[in-house]
């Protein structure tokens, strides 16, 4: 069961009351999680977990210790506090210690739906049963994953702050494969409100892509113009917004570092229509009301009109640099300052290029240029003369994200959609657009389907 605000407050107050440390923060989280997994048109595993976790961090003479437990009885909470105190007593001074926050005022964001926390088993089974029936009719074998999570938790400090929040998320991701293994399609969507998750659309899109990606042809690797669907953009840069760390840039070890110990802040690094921001109150992508450090979240532009406007300062690094810590990011939004285009318009405006639905197994290759490698998966099509011509085999790419979004390489930008990276399985999401790019570097072919 999820903790109410009153219950969460009681637990954090109890933990703070147990400690004699100079400073402390206590947090508690409660979670209900359920999932249903199917594969080869059959039910695989399905389960439910209920858990709570209490965490305490203490500072004694500026020395830090931390401990956590999932036993919530008084003796266990006290044991966790004592463990943290003991660790603090034998640790060296925490030179990055910042006094815990005094009382803050938070502007709530709406990221919780009661219905998501209590998914009816029969309804969920039927929704997946319908997907399997649709797959059988279409002659495909489907695999998918439905998950719902609700959490409620609070963080309190010895200096008087208290921050309680409830959040929920539900997602369905699905892969359809033709029986001969020659076609494969994928679609994933999530929402905090289960009534906004369109399971029929997810099923329809995955099946369509599987059927339309059959009989793919081999194309040479090389540099191609591309149209990236929102899923492909999410796979590449779903976590991008959290890479704008000021400290690593100023220490000279980031893609935003430049010679002489400086950073690229103020430079036009991306196409001038591109904005990258965090906004806790976006209706389709509510972010947390507080940052990881507990600060009240605000709208933060990282990139505005292509210019790197902000790097992200932690409380410690901000103090060292004599500036304010950054009140974000708590989510990731990429949007255009200009008129957005549809994927259909992007196709119509392509003389020759590739339409990419998804990327897979993406890993960093060179942090200096934010260069990534990975592969296309579940549908790549050749576009010529404004029309989709035929599916092509998958490719491996090696591509700098900085170059990808640079001025001169971005031709068209879509309307942002709520979409999450496929490696993240729908557990997180961003608002990201489709992109039409002048050049994208594919370095080899893959026969995988």
């Amino acid at each position, binding site marked *: 069961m999820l903790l109410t605000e009153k219950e969460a407050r009681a637990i954090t107050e109890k933990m703070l009351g147990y400690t004699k440390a100079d400073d402390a923060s206590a947090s508690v989280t409660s979670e209900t999680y359920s999932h249903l997994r199917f594969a080869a*048109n059959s039910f695989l595993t399905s389960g439910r977990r209920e858990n709570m976790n209490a965490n305490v961090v203490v500072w004694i003479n500026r020395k830090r210790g931390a401990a*956590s437990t999932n036993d919530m009885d008084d003796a266990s909470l006290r*044991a966790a506090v004592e463990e943290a105190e003991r660790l603090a007593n034998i640790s060296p001074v925490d030179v990055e210690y910042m006094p815990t926050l005094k009382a803050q005022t938070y502007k709530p964001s709406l990221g919780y739906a009661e219905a998501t926390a209590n998914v009816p088993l029969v309804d969920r089974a039927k929704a997946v049963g319908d997907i399997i029936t649709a797959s059988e009719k279409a002659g495909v074998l489907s695999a998918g994953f439905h998950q719902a999570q609700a959490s409620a938790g609070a963080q309190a400090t010895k200096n008087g702050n208290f921050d309680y929040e409830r959040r929920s998320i539900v997602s369905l991701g699905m892969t359809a494969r033709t029986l001969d293994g020659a076609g494969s399609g994928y679609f994933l969507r999530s929402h905090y409100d289960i009534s906004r998750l369109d399971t029929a659309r997810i099923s329809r899109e995955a099946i369509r892509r599987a059927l339309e990606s059959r009989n793919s042809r081999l194309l040479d690797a090389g540099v191609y113009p591309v149209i990236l669907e929102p899923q492909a953009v999410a796979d590449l840069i779903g976590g991008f917004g959290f890479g704008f760390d000021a400290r690593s840039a100023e220490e000279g070890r980031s893609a935003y570092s*430049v010679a002489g110990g400086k950073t690229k802040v103020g430079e036009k690094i991306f196409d001038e229509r591109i904005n990258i921001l965090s906004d806790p109150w976006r209706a389709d992508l509510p972010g947390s009301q507080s940052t990881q450090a507990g600060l009240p979240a605000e709208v933060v532009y990282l990139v505005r009109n292509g210019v790197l406007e902000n790097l992200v300062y932690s409380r410690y690094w901000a103090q060292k640099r004599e500036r304010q810590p950054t009140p974000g990011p708590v989510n990731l939004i990429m949007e255009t300052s200009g008129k957005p285009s549809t994927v259909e318009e992007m196709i119509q405006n392509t003389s020759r290029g590739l339409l990419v639905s998804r990327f897979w197994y993406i890993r960093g290759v060179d942090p200096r240029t934010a260069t990534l490698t990975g592969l296309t998966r579940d549908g790549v099509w050749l576009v010529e003369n404004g029309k989709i011509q035929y599916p092509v085999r998958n490719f491996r790419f090696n591509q700098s994200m900085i170059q990808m979004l640079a001025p001169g390489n971005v031709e068209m930008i879509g309307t942002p959609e709520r979409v999450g990276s496929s490696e993240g399985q729908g557990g997180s999401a961003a608002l990201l657009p489709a992109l039409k790019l002048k050049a994208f570097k594919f370095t080899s072919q893959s*026969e*995988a389907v």
Partner: protein
Amino acid sequence: MTTSRRDFLKVTGAALGAVTLPAWVFEAEAAADVSVDKNKLADVALSTAKRLGATYADIRINRYRFESLSTREQQVQNVSRSQSFGFGVRALVKGTWGFASSRIVTPEEVRRVTEQAVEIARANAVFQRKPIQIVPTPKVVASWKSSFEKDPFDVPIDDKIQFLLKLNQTAMKAQGVGFVNSSMFFVNEQKFLATSDGSRIDQYLIRSFPGFTVTAINRASGDFQTRASLGGPQAMGYEYLEKYPWMVEAEQAGDEVVAKLKAKSVEPGKYDLVLHPSHLWLTIHESVGHPTELDRALWWEANYAGTSFLTPDKTGKLQFGSKIVNFVADRTQPAGLATTGYDDEGVPGQKWHLVKDGLFVDWQTTRDLAPLVGRKQSYGCLYAESWGAVPFPRMPNVSLEPAKEAVSLDNLLGEVENGILIYGNGSFSIDQQRYNFQFGGQTFYEVKKGKIAGMLRDVAYQSRTTDFWGACDGLGGPATYQLGGSFNDGKGEPTQSNAVSHGCPIARFRGINVLNTAVRTA
């Protein structure tokens, strides 16, 4: 007579006070598990499941302890300990799995959660197409402990902090090293399993993962390079910190990261590769370990990790690599991260060949996978990362056997005209059917006419699994064999972490495609 956990804590806490508490205060928690009668709780779960129509059921009552320390330069960034205790029940009803779990370990909660697991299975069974079947396994009543000499949870934190700070100081001796980050993670699993077959198994496992990364920066040019430690995680105790030459490697890493800044950028093209075990374990993991998972081959992982280029009809027929290539799956190997007495459904740890004399011959299986390829027994590959996670097929230790003869690194290099020697694992990526892969590394050395000719940078190689293993023409002897591994191998939905080792000798591969990964931005 048993003492309740609360009473136990009251006694120890009041009598001893905070400073003189045991090395691990949560020991009190662990010791208090004695007061939880796991066998009685198991009886409740298994009888409830049977009464409600389950044809098979099991319950895991597990405690996990974690310790984490991290530092940078001469600062300690984090020292934390955590523990998690709870149980999970799995029930097979009408050929459909249901699972439920809770952190409240009482008979009433076990009964409620078991009913929930059955209810979940029953709701889904209405739409089930192919009922799950499981192969039998003999009843086991046993306890098992992983092989370690010094329990890391008994070693004082202060010793660990001093170790890391000394390591950082050593790494920063070389002029030009700008930063160093180091860390230690320790995991202890205390697992109890009871199955409706009658098995009752207690297990105690320890895993240790020390590591560091050094960074050198050229502020004038804006360039930077990193070098991560080559020693990886092991299923060993604190003796791993004491026996592995960590300080020697830290000093070497400092020198190497500075040298990397000035190293020659590689010329792309075909090279012979000589791969050290600190690098090759990851290539084995991705290109051999994952494609031989039977759940992937049967499309159970199609929506996430992917399928496999290996299919059941290729068993015993497909030439996976050259004749000298032999891969064994092994859950009995000392220090192996996936070594276990019994898996999470009571099947004993085993050792078997996946690739024999270059031929693909067998799979990794569980009790519900084995019958799908006509097997009567499981190889014991079921694992769950916690009490709250559904157990599912996970990789055993998968290792490349060394040459029987005493072949050295110099022997292997001696037959290379134009090649690259690679240490350590770097960037890694492979497609969803495990054909096309790309791997980087930590340090790279140009090999000319059988000799090391200098350091290289910006190296990654791309190949296709069977082409790559087919190009293997030289293996080091037993003296070159080392165990590498992953502490957190992700797979499944919801994704779970598995720790797994891969042993191998130094090995040579002919004519592999090498890329230059450096990109110049405007």
